[in-house]
């Protein structure tokens, strides 16, 4: 009896009875199993968090202390953050990232909603072909298109502008595909009822389909935010100087101009992470949905 309890505890946690009740009556083995599991989780959590922790600590140390590899800031140098923000232009970089990301997220939601509606609710010639064309965009990595896109952006006169940063990303096949799936889940009865009420397609889209697809749209929005906030190659190619640099390439600039004062660079890295950390804590569920949309449901 006691051995099977022990196996249970170690192997199939979803079957384990609530810990509070068994911990008191159960054999000590059960308690040890718990201790071991928590200890293991704790150690792994510390390892995963360590690079972030040490960066936060180093951002608050002075240079001599960093060289001594201190693990705790005894005399926190908060000025590194204001240095990174103003002299390091991080405030400006963050603003640029926000503007670029906002344009891309809104743009992707709009274009994906429109296209997905057509694919889900309308019949038209070449529907299948066009759908395949939309999916085909997923097979072409953006890196493959940069050579000509750079020329195009220069020719359109939007080099080194927010438009140049954002426009190539205003539509995604992934978004259209994901939202189409959501729209296909809208019950047929609702369509018939709306038709009887005299709803045209546009009204049906705005009043019924989009509200029902809100969870998918949220997932898509968080996914798009993450992807565009973290972009590196394209912003590097289409911006000339600090004025429009986004925070990701701004970090390299910050490092290059602070080769001696590491702490300012680390303050910058922490500042770059904070907006995304807050967003992801708030929208954890949507993020998971967005990231796993392709993997689990296929």
């Amino acid at each position, binding site marked *: 009896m006691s051995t099977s309890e022990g196996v249970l505890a170690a192997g199939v946690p979803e079957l384990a009875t609530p810990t509070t009740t068994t911990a008191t009556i159960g054999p000590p083995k059960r308690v040890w199993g718990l201790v071991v*599991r928590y200890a293991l989780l704790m150690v792994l959590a510390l390892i*995963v968090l360590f690079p972030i922790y040490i960066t936060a600590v180093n951002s608050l140390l002075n240079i001599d202390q960093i060289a001594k590899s201190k693990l705790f800031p005894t005399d926190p140098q908060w000025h590194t953050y204001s240095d990174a923000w103003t002299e390091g232009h991080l405030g400006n970089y963050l603003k640029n990232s926000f503007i670029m990301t906002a344009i891309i997220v809104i743009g992707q939601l709009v274009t994906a909603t429109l296209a997905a509606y*057509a694919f889900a609710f309308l019949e038209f010639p070449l529907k299948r072909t066009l759908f395949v064309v939309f999916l085909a965009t997923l097979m072409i*990595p953006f890196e493959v298109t940069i*050579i000509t896109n750079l020329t195009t952006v220069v020719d359109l006169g939007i080099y080194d502008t927010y438009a140049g940063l954002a426009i190539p990303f205003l539509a995604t096949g992934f978004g259209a595909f994901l939202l189409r799936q959501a729209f296909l889940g809208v019950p047929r009865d609702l369509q018939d009822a709306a038709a009887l009420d005299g709803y045209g397609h546009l009204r049906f889209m705005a009043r019924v389909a989009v509200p029902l697809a809100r969870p998918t749209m949220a997932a898509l929005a968080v996914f798009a935010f993450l992807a565009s906030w973290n972009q590196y190659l394209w912003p590097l190619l289409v911006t000339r100087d600090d004025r429009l640099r986004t925070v990701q390439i701004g970090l390299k600039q910050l490092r290059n101009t602070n080769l001696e004062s590491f702490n300012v660079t680390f303050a*910058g890295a922490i500042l770059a992470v904070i907006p995304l950390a807050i967003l992801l804590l708030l929208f954890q569920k949507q993020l998971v949905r967005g990231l796993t949309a392709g993997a689990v449901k296929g």
Partner: protein
Amino acid sequence: MTTVTDPAEAPFGIVVDKAQEHPRSWRKLKDASLAYALLLPAGVIFAVFIFYPFLKNFDLALHRTNPFNPDLSEYVGLEQFGDVLGSKEFFDSLWTTILFAIMTVPVGIALGLGLAVLAHQKLKGIAIFRTIFSSTVATSVAVAAVMFYTLFNPNIGLLKSVSPTPPFLENPDWALISIAIVTIWQSLGLSFILMSAGLQAIPDELVEAAQVDGAGPWSRFRNVTLPLLSPTMFFAIVVGTIFAFQTFGQIDILTEGGPLKKTNVLTYFIFTELRVQRNPGTAAVLAIALFAITLVLTLVQLRLLERRVHYQR
């Protein structure tokens, strides 16, 4: 819709309205034009920024860029493909990228799976651990690169006692490994989230049934969980490999392709051909090669997906 189309059912058996005569085709036309209008915004972006530049690569690749005047590039046919794809630099770059994928993808997935299995328990406070394990999704490759920059620094980093000479990022034997470590850490959160979702999709009854049959924890994991998780893992392997072939930011920040081009992965090679050498012709050949590799990986993924669908039936 309850439009009456059959004249026999129409009131008094007469159809008067002109529009009623072809209500279907009229509606069809309306629907079709609306559909095309809705597809237009995305279509324009795709045409201009995906399909056009993609096709333009083939044109660029057939022309050799004149180093002194880019407007005077000459048509050389497939010659440039042979020159670039047969060069030692391309071979080295491709090999570096493959090595990098081998270093990062399996380890990243294994770690993500390990953490996911550990966090897949009903324990008090497990949600906190789940959040911590997925936390690295909040970082970008640039942030991760800057974070590890000191760790690898020979004078100040915590790893200075084990630092080889020359130090990690300047050492031809260590540079790629160092970049791989940064990458594995940065993508750990994503890997954890994917694997956790895969685990949660496995019905509890199956694991319970194995339990009833007397299977031990390891046997249950090997014979029940792992096979059911295989679609998720295939997906992660393919997408992870595609990502590995697009690696750029961490290399630009930490090594710029060096030392001795030991971290000159394919995307970085394209970038330098384009930006430093100012040679769109050779860059286009490389871009086509990158596309071909991605295409093969995607087709493999689709194949496996198909097999999985049949399997589930």
